[in-house]
C-alpha cells in the first residue's frame, strides 16, 4: 500500500488530528536515551484498545512495522523505529489509571501512565508499586513492562515481572486477548511472564494489572564512604551473607561521585574511591539494630565514614543524586554509553578491576554506578560523539566488558534490555539452538515480524550472531 493510502486508512481509525507526519515530528521520534537512531514513517496517537487493534490489523495486512512508544527513556534502542513504520504513542491519550483496588492490592493502568505518576497516586493511600527504575520520573508503565525494568529496590522486591500479574494484549494481527489476571497463580501457560520483557516484539499491552504493597513503616538510609572499591564490594558481599536483606545496595565509584557532586552539590567527598548507598525498610522495631549491624560491617571493611540520613529531606537528596547519576555524567563529557551487564555478587571486585583495565586499554573514561546488591553493573563509558576515533574505541570497550561479564558467570543485560544495542552480544550468552528457540516463539506471536522488528532477536539468523555490538 502506498504511504498516502496508509495514512488515509490510519486517519479513518484515529482521526487525522492524531497523526503526525511532518519532518520535525518524525525526527522527534527517531531516538531514545541510547545511541540508536531510526526514523518512523508516521506517529499515531490511539486512545483505546479498539483503535490499537485496528491499527495492528492494518499494519499486519500491509507488512508495516509497528513500534509502541512511551516517553522514549529506553537505554537500548527499544522504541527506536530502526526499520521505519508506525510509531504508536501511548502518552497523550492512553495514560489513565483505570482501577485502584486497595483491599485486594491490585491496580489496572493503561500503558502511557508514568511510573512516578502511579506511585504518587498510590502514596495517597499509603501504598506503593515497588519497582523503581532510575528513570521512573519519566518512564511509562508500558515501557517498564516491555523492558522488564529493574531499579535499586529490586534487590529486595524483584524486578517488574514480579509485580505484573496480567494484561490486555493486542496481538500482531489485531486480535485482543487477556493474559494472567488478578490472582497470583493463573491457570494455563504463563503468557504474561513471556510478554513481560519481550521489548514490544510479541504483543502490545493496552491494560496492565499490577500488584501493589503497603508502604513500609520505617526506612533507614545509610551512606558509607570507601577508599578502595574492593572494600565497598566486600562490604556488599558480607551484608548479604549475614542474612540481612536491605532494600537497596547501590554503589558509585569515584568518577560517578564527582559527576553527581558537580551537579547536586550535596557534600559527597570527591576524593573517595567509592560509596555505598544502603537502605533498610520494614517495621520500625528492629531497624535500628539492623542499621547498627550494617554500620559495623562497613567499618570492619575499612569504611572511611558511615552516616545515617537524618530525615526525609536528606534521604531524598541522596536518592535524587543517585537517580540523576547517569545524566550528571553528561557534565563530565557530552555522551555516555551504558551497558548493564550483571555478574555474581562475589565477582564484583574482579569484574570492576577488569572493567578498569579495559578502560585503560582503550583509553576511555569509565564511571561506575551500579546495583551492587544484585551484581548489576552500569559502567558508563564517557565520550564525545564528535570524536569518531574515540567512539570506535568506546564500542570495542563496551563489547569487551560484556565479554567479561559472561566469562565470570554473568549476563549481558540486567534491566535495560537487548534492544538493538546488544543484539551482537547475544551469541556470547546463547547457543544457536537457544537463539532459534527464541525465534520460534517470536514466529508464533508475530509471523511477519512487524512488532518492533530489529530488536531483541533478529529473525534473519546470521546477523544476530555477529560478534559486535550494534550502536547506530
Amino acid at each position, binding site marked *: 500500500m502506498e504511504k498516502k493510502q496508509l495514512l488515509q486508512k490510519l486517519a479513518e481509525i484515529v482521526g487525522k488530528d492524531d497523526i*503526525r507526519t*511532518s*519532518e*520535525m*515530528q518524525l*525526527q*522527534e*521520534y527517531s*531516538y*531514545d*536515551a541510547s545511541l540508536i537512531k531510526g526514523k518512523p514513517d508516521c506517529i499515531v*496517537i490511539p486512545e483505546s484498545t479498539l483503535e490499537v487493534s485496528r491499527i495492528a490489523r492494518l499494519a499486519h495486512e500491509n507488512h508495516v512495522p509497528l513500534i509502541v512508544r512511551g*516517553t*522514549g*527513556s529506553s537505554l537500548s534502542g527499544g522504541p527506536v523505529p530502526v526499520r521505519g513504520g508506525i510509531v504508536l*504513542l501511548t*502518552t*497523550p491519550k492512553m*495514560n489513565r489509571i483505570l482501577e485502584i483496588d486497595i483491599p485486594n492490592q491490585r491496580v489496572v493502568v493503561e500503558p*502511557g501512565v*508514568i511510573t*512516578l505518576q502511579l506511585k504518587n497516586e498510590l502514596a495517597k493511600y499509603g501504598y506503593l508499586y515497588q519497582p523503581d527504575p532510575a*528513570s521512573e*520520573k*519519566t*518512564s511509562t508503565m508500558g515501557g517498564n513492562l516491555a523492558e522488564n525494568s529493574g531499579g535499586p529496590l529490586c534487590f529486595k522486591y524483584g524486578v517488574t515481572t514480579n509485580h505484573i500479574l496480567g494484561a490486555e494484549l493486542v496481538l500482531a494481527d489485531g486480535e485482543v486477548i487477556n493474559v494472567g489476571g488478578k490472582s497470583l497463580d493463573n491457570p494455563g501457560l504463563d503468557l504474561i511472564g513471556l510478554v513481560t520483557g519481550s521489548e514490544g516484539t510479541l504483543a502490545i499491552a493496552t491494560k496492565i494489572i499490577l500488584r501493589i504493597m503497603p508502604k513500609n513503616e520505617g526506612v533507614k538510609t545509610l551512606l558509607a564512604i570507601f577508599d578502595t572499591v574492593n572494600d565497598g564490594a566486600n562490604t556488599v558481599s558480607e551484608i548479604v551473607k549475614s542474612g540481612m536483606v536491605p532494600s537497596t545496595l547501590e554503589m558509585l565509584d569515584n568518577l560517578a561521585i564527582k559527576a553527581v557532586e558537580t*551537579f547536586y552539590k550535596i557534600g559527597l567527598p570527591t576524593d573517595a574511591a567509592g560509596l555505598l548507598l544502603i537502605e533498610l525498610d520494614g517495621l520500625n522495631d528492629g531497624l535500628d539494630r539492623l542499621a547498627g549491624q550494617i554500620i559495623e560491617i562497613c567499618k570492619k571493611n575499612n569504611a572511611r565514614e558511615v552516616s545515617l540520613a537524618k530525615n526525609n529531606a536528606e534521604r531524598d537528596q541522596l536518592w535524587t543524586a543517585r537517580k*540523576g*547519576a*547517569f*545524566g*550528571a*555524567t*553528561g*557534565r563530565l563529557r*557530552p*555522551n*555516555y554509553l551504558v551497558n548493564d551487564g550483571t555478574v555474581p555478587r562475589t565477582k564484583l571486585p574482579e569484574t570492576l578491576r577488569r572493567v578498569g583495565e579495559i578502560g585503560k586499554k582503550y583509553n576511555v573514561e569509565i564511571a561506575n554506578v551500579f546495583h551492587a546488591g544484585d551484581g548489576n553493573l552500569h559502567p558508563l563509558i564517557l565520550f*564525545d*560523539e*564528535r570524536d569518531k576515533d574515540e567512539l570506535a574505541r568506546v564500542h570495542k570497550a563496551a563489547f569487551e566488558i560484556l565479554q567479561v561479564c559472561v566469562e565470570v558467570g554473568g549476563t549481558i543485560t540486567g534491566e535495560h534490555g537487548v534492544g538493538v544495542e546488544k543484539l551482537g552480544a547475544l551469541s556470547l550468552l546463547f547457543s544457536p539452538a537457544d537463539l532459534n528457540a527464541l525465534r520460534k516463539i517470536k514466529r508464533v506471536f508475530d509471523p511477519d515480524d512487524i512488532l518492533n522488528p530489529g530488536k531483541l532477536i533478529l529473525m534473519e539468523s546470521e546477523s544476530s550472531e555477529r560478534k559486535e555490538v550494534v550502536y547506530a
Partner: protein
Amino acid sequence: MEQKPFFGKEAAENIYHCIRCGLCLPHCPVYREMREESAGPRGKVQISKRLYEGDLTLSEEIKDNYFSTCLLCGSCVANCPSGVNLLSLLQGVRWRGVQKFGTSWKNRLEFKMLSTHWMMSASVIMAEWARRYFGGEWIESKIHLGALSVDRIPPFSEKTFTEMVPEVAEPPKGNVKAKVLYFHGCATKYLNVGVGMAVVEVLTKMGVEVIIPKEQGCCGLPVFFSGERKTALSMIRNNLPLFARDDVDAVIIDCATCGSSLKNEYIHILKDLRELGEDVTADEIRAAELLSSKIQDVSLFIDSHRDWLPEIKPGGEKIRVTYHDPCHLAKAQGVRSQPRNILKSIPNVEYIEMNGADDCCGGGGSFQIDYPEISAKITKRKTDNIEATNAQFCATGCPGCMLTISNHVDPAIKVIHTVQILQQALKRSENSNG
C-alpha cells in the same frame, strides 16, 4: 539559500550534552499537558541539534513550535542533570525563525512600545483614556486576551512609579548602611506602583539608600525571547550604563523575570551575538558580568540583612499566607528560601506551604494570550493548589505571576508581592507604638 548559524559556540555546546534521558519531561508544564515530544524540552534540543548540523531545514512549523510550546519557565534548565540550557538554544532558533518567516504585526508593535519610552507612556495614557471614556465594559467586550479575563486585569496607574518617587530615596534617619540601585521594570512603573512604593519604603526603613535611575527601560527579555535580538540589544544598551556600576552594593530587582534577564541572559545574549559576528564589544560583555554580580532579588537582599529591619511587634490580626515560587526566581536565580524566611519572620503571619509551590503559573508573558488553552490548564493546577491552602494572601515575587494568578484564583484570595506583606507588617507595628 545558506542558513545562517543559529548559535554561538558556547550555546551550541548544550546540544552535545543532552543525553536524551528525558528527565526534563516531567518538569515541563507544557509537556505535562500535551505529552508529545514536540511539546517538551528534549525534542527542542534534538531539533536544535539537527538544525545546527544542517540535517534539517528551519521550517515555519519549527518556528511556531518553538514559540507555542515553551513558557520560558526554565524548569528544564533547573532540572537537567547534564546541565543543558535549552533557553539559549531557543533564543537562537526563534531569532532565525523570525528573520526567515517574520513576526506578527501585534508582536512588532508590542516590542516597539516596550523599547521606546514615549510610546509606552502614550499607550498607557490612551488605554486609560479609552477605559474612562467608553467605560471598562465596552472595551472589555472588544478585547480578547487569550486565557486572561480583561475585566480582572488591574487598571494602569494614573501616575507612573517614576513620577511618584525621587531619583534618590534616603533613609529617614541615621547612617546609611548600604547604597543600592533599584531596577523596577515595566510592571512596577505602569501597573503595580504599590510594589515599588513598598520596596522603597522597606529598604529605606532598613537604612538603605535607594537610587532609582529615571531613564531605565524594559529589561528586554520579552523581546529577545521573541526573536527580536537586535531590538533587544538597544534595550540592553540603555540599561547597562545605568546599572553596571561598581560603586553600589547591589542592584535590587522586584521582578523575577527582569532579575533573571539582567542576571543571566544579558551575558548569554551578548556573548552569543558577538560570536555570531554582531557588533558587540568586549567592554559590553564585561559590563554585563559586573551587573550580573550585583543583581539581587529584593527578597534575597532583605533576607540577608534581616537584622537591619526595625523590630516587628507581635499583635494585630493573624493572616494566613502562602507563597508561589516564580519560575524566574526559583529556577533561574535559585531564590527559594529567602521570601519564605521573610514571611515566616513576621509575627502575625501564619505561613502555609502549598503543594507544587514551584510549579509554573502558566502565564509565561504573552504565552497565555497566544496559547490560552494550554495556559489555562496549567494555571488551573496552580490555583487549585493555592485555594486548597485556605490562605487569605498568596505572596509571590513576579508581576507576571501576580497578573496570571489574580486573574484566575478565587477573588477572595489577594495576590501580592512578598515585600508588600512586610511593608504592611512594619506599618502596623509602628502604629501600635502609639
